[in-house]
C-alpha cells in the first residue's frame, strides 16, 4: 500500500521538496530573520555606521540616544550602535568557530568511543564525566582564567569545554545504531570499519548533531558574553556584548543605554538562534521532545 502511495507522489523539484520537509512555523521564521540580521550586522558593520568601533570623542561622553548617536555613547564617547554591530562579529565568530570545532572533535571522539568501545571508551567517558561534574559556566570561567584573556583564548576555552556534550550524544547514538540489523549485515558481508563508519553510521548522526549544534551556538554566545562580562574573555577596546555590559555596569546610575542595548542584542540573538534550533528539532526529528 505504502509503495503505491509512494509511487503516486509527484516528483518535486529539489527546492520544493526541502520546503515540504522543513515547514516553517512562526517561531522558526522569526528566528531565521533575527539570525539573518545578526549576520548582516556582522558582515556589513563598516557600511552600516559612519563611526569606528574604537573611535572615541571625549567631548561627547555618555550621551543619551539621539539622531546623531542612535543608541547613545559610552564613557569614552564611542558610538554604542557601532560597537554593537562590531560586537556581533565576536558573537558570530564564537558561535560558528567554537561549535564547528568542538562539534567535529566531539563527533570523532564519540564515534571512536561508541564504535570501538574498550579502554578508549572508558577513558573518554571518564573525562566526559569529570567535565560534566562542573556547571558549564564555572568550568569555562576557570579554564579561561587559566588560559588567559583574549578572543583566541575564549574560543579555545569553549572548544575545550564544549566537545563533551557532542561526544556523549554521538556515543549514545552509535551504541544504538550498532545494535541494528543492517550494521550487523554490513559487518557480516565483510565491510571494513571505515566503510561502516562513513557510509552507515555518519549519515544517521547528522540530524542529532545538527540539532544539538543549533542549541550550542546560543549557549556559546551567551557563555562568551558572561565570561567577558566578568572581566575575563574578550577585552576592551575590542567590542563584545559581554564587555560592553561590564563597562555599562559602572555607569548604570547615569547611562541606562549602556547596559540596555548590548543586552537586548544578546537576548535577541540567543532567542533567535534558540527558536531556529527548536524549529530544526521539531521538523527534523519529531521523536525528540523536551
Amino acid at each position, binding site marked *: 500500500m505504502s509503495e503505491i502511495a509512494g509511487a503516486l507522489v509527484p516528483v518535486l523539484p529539489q527546492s520544493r521538496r526541502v520546503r515540504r520537509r522543513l515547514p516553517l512555523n512562526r517561531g522558526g521564521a522569526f528566528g531565521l530573520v533575527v539570525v539573518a540580521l545578526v549576520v548582516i550586522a556582522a558582515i556589513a558593520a563598516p557600511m552600516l555606521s559612519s563611526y569606528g568601533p574604537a573611535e572615541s570623542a571625549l567631548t561627547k561622553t555618555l550621551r543619551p540616544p539621539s539622531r546623531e548617536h542612535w543608541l547613545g555613547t559610552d564613557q569614552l564617547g564611542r558610538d554604542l550602535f557601532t560597537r554593537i554591530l562590531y560586537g556581533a562579529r565576536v558573537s558570530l565568530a564564537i558561535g560558528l568557530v567554537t561549535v564547528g570545532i568542538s562539534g567535529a572533535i566531539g563527533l570523532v571522539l564519540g564515534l571512536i568511543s561508541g564504535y570501538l568501545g574498550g579502554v578508549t571508551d572508558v577513558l573518554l567517558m571518564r573525562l566526559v564525566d569529570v567535565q560534566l561534574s562542573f*556547571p558549564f559556566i*564555572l568550568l569555562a570561567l576557570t579554564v579561561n*582564567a587559566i588560559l588567559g584573556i583574549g578572543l583566541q583564548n575564549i574560543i579555545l576555552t569553549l572548544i575545550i569545554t564544549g566537545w563533551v556534550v557532542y561526544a556523549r550524544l554521538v556515543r549514545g547514538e552509535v551504541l544504538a545504531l550498532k545494535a541494528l540489523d543492517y550494521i550487523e549485515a554490513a559487518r557480516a558481508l565483510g565491510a571494513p570499519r571505515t566503510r561502516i563508519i562513513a557510509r552507515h553510521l555518519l549519515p544517521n548522526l547528522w540530524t542529532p548533531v545538527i540539532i544539538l549544534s543549533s542549541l550550542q551556538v546560543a549557549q556559546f554566545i551567551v557563555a562568551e*558574553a558572561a565570561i567577558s562580562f566578568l*572581566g*575575563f574573555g574578550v577585552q576592551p577596546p575590542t567590542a563584545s556584548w559581554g564587555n560592553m*555590559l561590564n563597562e555599562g555596569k559602572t555607569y548604570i546610575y547615569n547611562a541606562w543605554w549602556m547596559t540596555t542595548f548590548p*543586552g537586548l542584542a544578546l*537576548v535577541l540573538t540567543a*532567542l533567535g538562534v534558540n527558536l531556529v534550533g527548536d524549529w530544526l528539532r521539531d521538523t527534523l526529528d519529531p521523536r525528540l521532545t523536551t
Partner: protein
Amino acid sequence: MVQFVTRRLLEAAVVVFLALTVVFSLQFLAGDPVKLFLPTDTTPKQIEEFRDRLGFNDPWLVQYMRFMRGALRGDFGDSLRQNEPALELVLRRFPATLSLSGVAMVLALATAIPVGVISAARRNSWFDHLGIGATVLGQAIPGFWLGLMLIYVFAVWLRWLPTSGRGTWLHFVLPSVTLAAFVAARFARLTRSMMLDVLGQDYIRTARAKGLAPPRVLYKHALKNASLPIVTLLALQLGQLLGGAVITETIFAWPGVGRFLVQALLNRDFPVVLVGAFLTAVLYSGLNLAADVAYAWLNPRIRYE
C-alpha cells in the same frame, strides 16, 4: 538498590578524584602565580626564595602527591592572598550562597509549577500562550543582563530596593529573582509537557467521569503522576544554581562562594580555586546521584541492575 547506590558512590568518588587531578594540572598552564602577588621591584632571588617556601620549585609529581595527601585530610593549603586555610575561607561563605539558592529555588518552584499546571489544563488559552512566551524569554535572557536590568528599574529608577550587599530581606529580592528566572522557565516548560502527557491518560478521564472536582483531578491525580521528572530536575537544577550564583553574586556583591571564586580566579589564588573545584565536583556529583536515587525510589517500575 543498595548495590546501585554503592556503585554510584564509588563512581562519584572517582570523578571527584579525577576532577581534582585535572584542575591541579591546569594551574601549571597558567602564568607564574608567584610573580603576580609580589611587588614589581622584587629581586629574582627573593622570588626564588618565595617559590621555594611555597613548594612551587618541586617536581610536578611531588607537588601533586603533597596536594592529594593534604586534600584527603581536608587540608588544601593556605590562600595565597589571605593567610588562612583556603577550605575555611570558602566554607565560611557557603551559608550566604545556600540561603540565596534556597530562596531562589522556592521562588522558582512556587511560580513555575502552578504556571505549568494551568497552562496544560487550559491548553492554547491566552494564559498558555503567555506562559510559553514567558518561559522562552526566561531561557533566552542571561542572568547577568536580567540582574542589571532589575537593578536599573528597581534600585536606580524606582529606588524601592537596595542595589547590592546582604543584610535585610529586601537584599534577597533582586538576586533571588535573577537566579530563579532561568530555573523557573525550565520547570514551567517541563511541568506543562508532563501534565499534557498525563492529562491524556485514561485514568484522568475516569476520575473526571466519576465527578471529582477539577482541581482535585488536576493536583491529586495528574500532578502527582507528572512529578517524577520534576523531582529529578530539581536535583540537577540545584547544581546549576551554583553556576548561576557565580554571576548573580558578582553583580549584586553578594558575599557568597561564587563571588569569592571569581575573585580568586582574578587573583590566581590557586588553593582557593582548587577548594572551589573540589566542593563543586562533590556537590554536583552528589546531586546527580540524588537525582538518580530519587528517580528509582519514586518509580518502582524502574529497576537498576
